[in-house]
């Protein structure tokens, strides 16, 4: 029968600890939580609530576009590669966050005011830009606030090192936006390639994951099969220089081959190419993909995971020892 603890002992806090908690050296999963009766101990329950609160805030806190604009203007002084024009603030057809969450179709289109603004902007169409960078809030403003500027800085370094010249369109910031909004922006700015930086659906342990989506010859109505994705860009995931390296490779290859999507493979390094990682991405459509029907995962994805999580293949599994 269950041991009866001595509740008069001052050390007793009602919690049964799990000695296997040390197995957390192998995983970030919440193992060995211990128990109060058969329930979560107070500390573990409150820590979970905090993680969920942070993920919720990532979804619902509006992005501070003026702070972002300032940071980008400072960056532009440092990197002449970036267009000297200040970033343009745009909006999707989703009027607010509640609409955005329920109407993915509206988040994929620029609203009319933004379209007018871009048409005014783009006065000399004879010379297309090589690249348009689009910053979209997506499902995590936190991801953009933390990770967009450092990534663009790393990308500038990557592009500066390239032999060929890159002309960049003015950076655009799009509110209530999904990935495909980049097609509208790229088309209206007359850009050969668009790279969308977007806040990914926040996980409990990763509220600030940035996704990168590259599309060659952007035009409204493209499917996801035409895109390449780099996922989980954040210091604890795929770090900025690695992400910029991958993005630089894809940009050069896309420009050389004049295409993007499934025909463009990332061979920039040993990579995890995973359909299921799409579960973390903003634009995952066929979402009961718990499963991984390959046909659904039409976006070619690369993802970064902390290398510390890899154990050596030869090691005998502890559970089988």
């Amino acid at each position, binding site marked *: 029968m269950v041991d009866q603890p001595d509740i008069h002992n001052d050390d007793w806090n009602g919690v049964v600890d799990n000695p*296997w908690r040390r197995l957390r050296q192998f995983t970030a999963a919440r193992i060995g939580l211990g128990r109060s009766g058969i329930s979560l101990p107070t500390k573990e329950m409150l820590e979970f609530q905090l993680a969920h609160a942070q993920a919720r805030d990532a979804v619902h806190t509006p992005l501070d576009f003026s702070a972002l604009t300032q940071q980008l203007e400072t960056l532009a002084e440092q990197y002449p590669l970036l267009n000297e024009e200040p970033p343009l603030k745009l909006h999707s057809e989703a009027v607010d966050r509640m609409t955005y969450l329920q109407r993915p179709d509206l988040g994929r289109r620029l609203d009319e005011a933004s379209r007018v603004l871009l048409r005014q902007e783009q006065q000399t169409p004879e010379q297309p830009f090589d690249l348009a960078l689009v910053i979209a809030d997506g*499902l995590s403003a936190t991801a953009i606030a933390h990770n967009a500027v450092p990534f663009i800085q790393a990308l500038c370094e990557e592009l500066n090192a390239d032999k060929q010249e890159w002309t960049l369109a003015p950076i655009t910031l799009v509110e209530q936006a999904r990935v495909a909004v980049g097609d509208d922006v790229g088309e209206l700015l007359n850009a050969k390639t668009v790279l969308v930086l977007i806040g990914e659906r926040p996980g409990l342990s990763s509220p600030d994951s940035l996704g990168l989506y590259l599309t060659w010859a952007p035009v409204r109505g493209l499917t996801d099969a035409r895109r390449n994705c780099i996922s989980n860009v954040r210091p604890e995931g795929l770090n900025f220089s690695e992400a910029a390296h991958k993005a630089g490779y894809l940009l050069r290859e896309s420009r050389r081959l004049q295409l993007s999507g499934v025909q463009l493979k990332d061979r920039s390094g040993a990579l995890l190419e995973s359909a299921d990682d799409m579960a973390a991405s903003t634009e995952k459509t*066929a*979402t009961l993909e*718990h*499963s991984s029907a390959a046909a659904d995962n039409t976006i070619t994805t690369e993802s970064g995971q902390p290398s510390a999580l890899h154990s050596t293949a030869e090691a005998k599994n502890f559970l089988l020892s």
Partner: protein
Amino acid sequence: MHKAYRYSLGSKTYEFRNLADLMARATPARSGDRLAGVIARSAEERAVAQMALADVPLKTFLNEVLIPYEQDEVTRLIIDEHDALAFAPISHFTVGDFRNWLLSDLASSDMLSKIRNGVTPEMAAAVSKIMRNQDLILVAQKCRVITAFRSTIGLPKRLATRLQPNHPTDDMNGIAASILDGLLYGSGDAVIGINPATDNVAQATRLMKLMDEVISKYEIPTQSCVLTHVTNTLECIEQGAPVDLVFQSIGGTEATNSSFGFNLATLAEAEQAALSLQRGTVGNNVMYFETGQGSALSANAHHGLDQQTCETRAYAVARKFNPLLVNTVVGFIGPEYLFDGKEIIRAGLEDHFCAKLLGLPMGCDVCYTNHAEADQNDMDNLLTLLGAAGCSFVMGIPGSDDIMLNYQTTSFHDALYARRVLGLGPSPEFEAWLEKMQIMSNAAGACLNEALPPAFAASLKTLPAGNSESEVSNG
């Protein structure tokens, strides 16, 4: 085109274009139907549609198919497999009569088993639309669906769990750590099922071998499954991998399933291949299916139907292949299909009811994503309601946090809560194993032992002593 349906309310007449339109407008509100443009245009229209639907004879569903027979192999399956003899006792009912009968004492567990092959998915969906949550619970609880492989699923007063030890890089020790955590919390009698991070045949085989060795070493009366595409599992079988269950996500239209990369013939081939391995001990149900409202719409393959009707049609696909487990992944799809806790809870109860009525071993991934208007309290509610409804199994994951798929589902602790508060035991084979291994002193009462069970203590001793303080960061 089929005939329109009309219903007069005072001086006002409501018209519904056809049966599919009537069913869609009668559906309790949810964001996916709004997105598809098939939702009722007012609360009154919904209530009227429910009244009109209640008047529709069940026989109508055999004559007015929602997706043309010629265009859709799921429709052909539904019509061709319909059992007229089983249908006879309910054939004179309208949808409204059917609800009354289901709730009555005439609809005993035995009677519900007898008529199930006479019920089509559309009949089940239609009646569910005019049932309240308590009706869905009460009738589902009367349905008996028992399946088996190495454990028996679906016996009365039992609630099984899928142990879901996912890891973002498929690290073998990381997965084993979560398996151990689950087993020591009494989880895993439905299946130990991994969603692989790297989705290919070689990786699936590695994961199958790991689970097979763990199940063999500790003599666990359960089965394993790698949730990879059915064609991958077929290749694994050809290469001699230890496959217990074949997984596939399924939908309720041929076009949805095509977008998932399979058809009915693929599933038939997979079931035969898995059966040929003869790895079951107490039964031979070898398929594991997952479903979820909204999948057809997200694949742009819904033919103008509401998402719950599409979902129920997927159960015809499942029923054909004698699954051990069917799982509706109810909150995973996101708020554009099920917006908040209220919609997720309703959908979970509908899916469970319809599947049980059609004779499927239905479990539920009681879950939500961080962009849905839902939280742990909503999941507590749905878990408790499903436990009362006799749900076959739920998920079990360390601390509710799936670090690979980035969503929250029920934890090992949650399952013990449900077992204890509702008096539900694990599957009988697993219950005996938990006590033999000294994990639980009284598995039926969900009582865990405090001491580390000896067999597992031995494995933990083999770990290097160093390093034990350094936890992998949650980032």
